[in-house]
């Protein structure tokens, strides 16, 4: 699964937790989930759980704590999916 495919699916994971849905159209790997997408930190665990279900993977504690930017998320998901 390439990074673009992961990004496309990741947008769907982030959609319910992003107040301004239009921001998702312009996200790049540098986009920060909290600062740029204004996602509330209380939803970070929701995103990890949804990503686990979407990709049928398990994201452990050490990986989950790195998922602050889109790049971090893609790195973690790519590592698990392609393992």
């Amino acid at each position, binding site marked *: 699964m390439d990074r673009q495919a992961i990004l496309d699916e990741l947008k769907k994971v982030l959609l319910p937790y992003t107040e301004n849905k239009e921001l998702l159209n312009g996200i790049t790997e540098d986009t920060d989930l909290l600062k740029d997408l204004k996602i*509330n*930190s*209380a939803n*970070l665990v*929701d995103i*990890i*759980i949804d990503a686990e279900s979407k990709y049928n993977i398990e994201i452990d504690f050490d990986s*989950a*704590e790195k998922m602050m930017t889109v790049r971090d998320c893609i790195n973690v998901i790519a590592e698990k999916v392609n393992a």
Partner: protein
Amino acid sequence: MQSAGNDIIALDLTDKQRSNDSRFYSKILSESEKKYYCHSPLAGMEFEYFLWLCWSVKESAYKYLKRIQPGLIFSPTRIEIVHVAIPVNGKFEQPECIQWEGPAQGEKCYNGRFVFEGNTYYFRSKIYPGMITTVVNADESFEHVSWGFDSIDDTGSEHQSKAVRAFLLQKLQTILPGKELRIEKAAAGYPVVFSGTEELDIPVSFAHHGSYIAYSFYLPDYRCSEDEELFSLFHYTRDWKSRKEDLYHPISTL
């Protein structure tokens, strides 16, 4: 180094079913915290409340520690709650008002300890049927820590952000009259208070979630008194709501 950290959780925005799913709560609670829930006075509390109490402590702790360790990454299970005492007057208080400000002391709070990297820190929390708010500190006394929370009608993130800054600045202006205060964010993400070009040595923290906003700050030269708390309640009942609409309105703030 002194710091500040707080959090607020609007329980209507949390997913009750998911909160009780072990896949979900195991990413927040450590194994010992799960056991603690079952064997402590908190066992009578709905698990959902326990979980979000723990989250609010951990989020507050992260904010507190981030100012001291700017490179810190949030890892909820590594911030471990080791003790929680329930308020002497019962588990749940009905909110006497929507807006509250006062000292982070007294018997009306849940209070407890948590450990991070071998160091012990302390927290105070208030739990209402729809909301949980927490403040943390390195000193158990909380003597110089003040906090407050309020509710807002417009829950858009931009308005939340402006409203919580206005709420905090209004409080600080009463302590530091005559100063033109403003809040900026440090590169690491924590808020910093400025008076003109001077960065003030007042660690502050704020939080917002849904229709709730909250602040905390540490100020050694200031001790929020019980009288002030009562005044705040009185103030609310008289005219706070109408003043708040002006204060928090995006056009009239900051």
